[in-house]
Every structure is written in structure tokens, then in C-alpha cells.
């Protein structure tokens, strides 16, 4: 059983995103592991713990700082870490999927997992694109994957609290919405120990452009209005609310 987890290193949205020219100012943002990838790593390790096998984590190193995320994945139970040294912070999901698919093709995976989405997905998701490149089936929005005898039972979430169970033959690509358990904690001392001893394999990105979108312009949204805070006593506030409702023809 060989599970490959494709991860993304993305600009942190803990802060405002600075814009330069027609894209994010990549020099002045921190990059973090995509939140959903933490779940796909957890899902992969849970399958490994249940049925054995190896977990390979692979990502495009867009700013040269992916090692931290890979060490974290190793500390959580992944066996092998690979980075595609592209150093192109603006590489979109189409481009990353192409590079990843080319690398994953040589790994003969039984299962490929990716986070179902990322906060920098503008043009779709990584998983479906990888599946298309590798000509494999794709299922997104998974909340549990169990593997037995060359098949997988997959729980997929739908809106309104509905879940559906699928039986899928390996290999396939899954977009993980959530692991069945919260992602485990990797103690920093363990991550730091791994950082000193672990080997991260580096591969060069393939040649050739992928399809995808071209950025024409990027700008922060223009603030056009704001909420009015009504202050005063309860009576004054009530009077103001009535006045507002009347002025909009609702009373």
C-alpha cells in the first residue's frame, strides 16, 4: 500500500494580503501548509496504521521553505518526503498539479490524497487536476477513507448533514474534507529532531506550461459601506430601528 499525499504551501491569511503588481506580494507574506492538507496527512497516516504501507508526502516548494511542512508530516508518521524545487510563488493549481502528476506517476501509488481545497484556489482544486493528468477517478469532500483488499470505503459529505458511502477500486485520487480524527499533534522536539536527521528528496519541475488562468489584475476589495452602530438607551435604539425600517418601506 503506497499512499501519496500532495500538499500545498500557501500564503498565510492570518494577515492582510499585500498586493504588488497583479498578484500577492509574495516577499512580504508568510507561507503555511494548507489547512486541509493537515487532514489529508492525518487520513493517510490513519490508513497506514490500519493496514500498513508507506506514506509519501510531496509538494511544490514555491518559496524554498517547504522543508518545515515536510518535517512536520514526517513527525506525524509519513515515511518519505519529496519536494519539487520550483521556487515560483505564483505557480497556480494547474501548474502545480502538472508538476505533481509527473512526479507521482513514477511512484506507482495505490491512493493519492490532497486537501479538498486551499485558500489560494482560484481556478479549482489540486486533486481533480492531478486525477485528470493521471487519468484516475476522483472523489472530493471525503470525511473517512478505509482501505480493504484493493478497495476503499469512502464517506463523502454533502450539504445538509447528508453523508454517502462509496466503494471505490484502487488507485484513485481523493480530496480530503476532513480526516475521521482531528489531525494529531507533532511535538516540536520531534519535528526538530527529524529536521536534523531526515532526508528530503528534491526533484526538478518538469518542462512546459500548463493550462490555467492568467492574472490580469489583483486589488484589495474597495470598502463601500459599513455597519451603523446604534447607540443610546433601549428606547432610543428601538426608535431608531423603527425609523430605519420605515425609511426602507418595511413597516
Amino acid at each position, binding site marked *: 500500500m503506497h499512499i501519496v499525499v500532495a500538499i500545498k504551501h500557501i500564503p*498565510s491569511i*492570518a*494577515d492582510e494580503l499585500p498586493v504588488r503588481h497583479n498578484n500577492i506580494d509574495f516577499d512580504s507574506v*508568510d507561507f*503555511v501548509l494548507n489547512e486541509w492538507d493537515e487532514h489529508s496527512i492525518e487520513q493517510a497516516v490513519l490508513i497506514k496504521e490500519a493496514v500498513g504501507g508507506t506514506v509519501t508526502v510531496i509538494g511544490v516548494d514555491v518559496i524554498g521553505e517547504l522543508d518545515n511542512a515536510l518535517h512536520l508530516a514526517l513527525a506525524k508518521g509519513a515515511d518519505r518526503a519529496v519536494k519539487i524545487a520550483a521556487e515560483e510563488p505564483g505557480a497556480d493549481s494547474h501548474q502545480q498539479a502538472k508538476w505533481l502528476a509527473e512526479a507521482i506517476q513514477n511512484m506507482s501509488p495505490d491512493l493519492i490524497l490532497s486537501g479538498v481545497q486551499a485558500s489560494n484556489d482560484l481556478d479549482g482544486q489540486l486533486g481533480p487536476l492531478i486525477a485528470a493528468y493521471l487519468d484516475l477517478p476522483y472523489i472530493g469532500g471525503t470525511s473517512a477513507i478505509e482501505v480493504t483488499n484493493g478497495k476503499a470505503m469512502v464517506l463523502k459529505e454533502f450539504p445538509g448533514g447528508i453523508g454517502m458511502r462509496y466503494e471505490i477500486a484502487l488507485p484513485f485520487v481523493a480530496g480530503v474534507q476532513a480526516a475521521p480524527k*482531528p489531525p*494529531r*499533534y507533532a*511535538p*516540536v*522536539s*520531534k*519535528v*526538530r529532531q527529524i529536521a536534523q536527521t531526515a532526508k528530503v528528496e528534491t526533484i526538478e519541475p518538469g518542462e512546459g506550461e500548463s493550462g490555467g488562468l492568467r492574472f490580469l489584475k489583483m486589488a484589495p476589495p474597495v470598502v463601500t459601506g459599513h455597519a451603523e452602530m446604534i447607540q443610546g438607551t433601549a428606547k432610543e435604539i428601538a426608535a431608531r430601528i423603527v425609523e430605519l425600517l420605515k425609511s426602507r418601506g418595511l413597516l
Partner: protein
Amino acid sequence: MAPIEKAVAIEKENVIVDGMDISGPWSRIFEQRTIFDYTPELIEKVASIPGAESFANCYQCAKCVAVCPVDVVGNYGPRKLYRYAQTGMDLTEAPQLWLCTTCANCLRVCPKEVNMVRIMPAVREQAILDGKFVPAELQQAFENTAKYGNPLGQPQRKRDAWTQNAGVPVPILKDLGRPVDVLWYVGSYPSYHPRGIDAACAAARIFNALGIDFAILGKEEKDDADSQRLAGEKGLFEMMAEYNIATFNKYEWKEMVVTGPHELNAFKNVYPRYGFSRPVLHYTTFLVRYLDRLKPLLKHPIHKKVTYHDPCYLGRHNGEYEAPRQLLQAIPGLELVEMPRNRENGFCCGGGGGGMWMDSFTAQHTTMRLSEKRAMEAAATGADILAVACPFEVSRFEDAVKSTGNEHMRVLDILELLDRSMRGDVEI
């Protein structure tokens, strides 16, 4: 385990000494007792963890239980943990592992030096490394500290955003480009928490009024991580300590003043193990030196009854009990009243040792929060204001006065009280 062979009694049933009959029923406590019903294995398991050796020292006198704050709201204390371990509790997996706040009141009274301040971090670290249960909120605080440099998960770039509200200049070392007398380490909660920011702004105004040559690290400042260490994340602590020490040593300054007792404990008592040993003072200790210059500035009386809560890491851990009280008493009109548990016997607010980030978990194992119990004690003195000197406490006690129906009592940092007495334009 085989029972130990019963010792032969060495005393006679009927004894007459110097004509006096001292015969009597034989007391069992003089006999060697046979041990059938428990084994020392789980005690040894804890005591075999480096740092946790003193767990096995306990001889069950129970002095600790009488002063353990967690026992007031639950069933706890080092002696009880020892007994639980005898009767089958594996501390590395039990919820009890996370309830100790490392307040150190037990250590103060323990004749056998069973040291929970060392035992708890060691056993927690082992549990974390072994992938055992870790409370989810605590895990979040660890992850935030590693990712963002503070347990609140706030962006590093906004660490000095609070200075805009101070109304006075707050110089940043990097921009200043010259040595300063005082490096003020602001701390995570005073930098980000709305009520912490109130105290930070007050401190900035007081330092300015006293003409102190100070500066802060601004965006270069990161969390001290001492409470994360006590909660068991030593690796995270070491990572933060290495960064902080390198940052502190980049600049020339004479002494460091910290807003929080946990930072004081980190930089004064723990960072020296990692090669940092420069003078560090809590703001109360620092300001007391300026009392003669401060007093004339405190022009506006505060006619209120105030009680003061001793932070565990300022008092018991670092021996500072009087400076906060001297500062409070310098405020004209202010009447200081003491709670029954004060100074060395001060009652813990529940925020130490990682407790700050485990309230929901702790709530499942205790009858009320320690901060609630303490807020009730404060209210019972008839105080109008509960004064604090630790940035963890303002938010903890403000929640607690609300949940215990004591909203009439305000919770204010000593910095805020000094600032209000200085400015006089803010109602209390």
C-alpha cells in the same frame, strides 16, 4: 507481588516498668504491614521519567492537599495523585495530568520536596512525545505559538499595532538604532488581548511620565513560551528561547522589564540554562524603585476598596509580594484590603502551567474554575476592585466576576490603576 512476611512483635502484652503497668492493646502502626492491594509500578513509571523522580518521595502526609487550589474545586493534590497511582491510575494517560497549574503551593509545604513544578512538565512531555491524549485547546495554543509566535494565533506583523493607542511614543529598538536603559518585553497578551492592550498602554504612559529611557522589540518580539514548557512542550519552548535570546542579544540595553510574571520566570529562571543571563525585573519591582518620582504624579485619588491577587509566578515562584502592594498604597484614597489567602498562600487563578489554554477541559473535571473561586474570595472582602499584576488574569477574572454574579467588582491591572490615578480623566 508476594506479601512481605509479617515481622515478629517485639513487645510484650503485659509490661511493668519501675512498678508501673504499661500494658495495653498492641498498636498496629508499630507492626510491619503487609501490602497486598497495590503495587508501586505506576509510581515507579512516573518517577522513572527524568525530572519526575521526586514523585516517589511522597510519604502521604497530605499537607499538600490542604493547600492545593485544585482540591478546592475537585479531588486533587500530589498526595492524592500518589495514592491514585498506587491504586491503578497511570498518570501519563489520566486527565489528572492536565489539572495541575504548577502554582507551587504544595512544594512550599512539602517536607519531602515532591516537586510538581518539575514533575508535571516532565510527565506531560513524555505523554506528548508518546502521542497520548493532549487537550485540544492546549494543542491549538502550541500550534499557534509555533506558527505565529504567540498562543493567541495573532499575526506577528501586528504585534506592535497596540502602540497606536498608547497616546505616547513607544520606541522600537530596531528603529531607534541606539542603546537604551530598559528593554520592555511587552508579552503576548498585553500585545494582542484587548484588555491586555489596556495595561500595555497604561505602562507606556507611566514609563513616559517617569522619563524612563525604554524601547520595545516590536515585531521582533515573540512569546516566552514558559507556560508551554510547563504544559509539556519543551521542544517548542527551546525553539522560542533560542529565537528570543538571539533577539535580546542583538541590542544594547541595561535591564529588561517584563509585564508578566510568566515572562519573568522564563527569562530570569529558565533562560539562563540556555545561555541568557541578564537582569530581568517585573514591572512592579521596577516601578517601586521610582516610587518617590511616581507619587507626585498620582494626583487623582481613587476612593475605592481594592484587594490584590498575588500571581503564583510573581509571588511564590519569584518572591515578590510587597512591590505590588506598595504601588497600590501609593495611590491616594485607595484602601487596600487582603483576602484570607494572600502572599505565600495566595490562591491560584488557574492560568499557570498551561491552564490558561485548558479551561474547557478543566471544566469537565472540576466543580468551578479556580478564577471563579478566587473572584468569590475577592468579592467577600467587600472590594470594589480586584487588582492584578499578571496579563493572564484580567481576562480570567473578568469572566469569573460575571459568571459568579460579582460584576460590581472591577478587575484592573495595577498599571491601569496607576495610570488612572495619574490621568484622572477616566472613570472607574
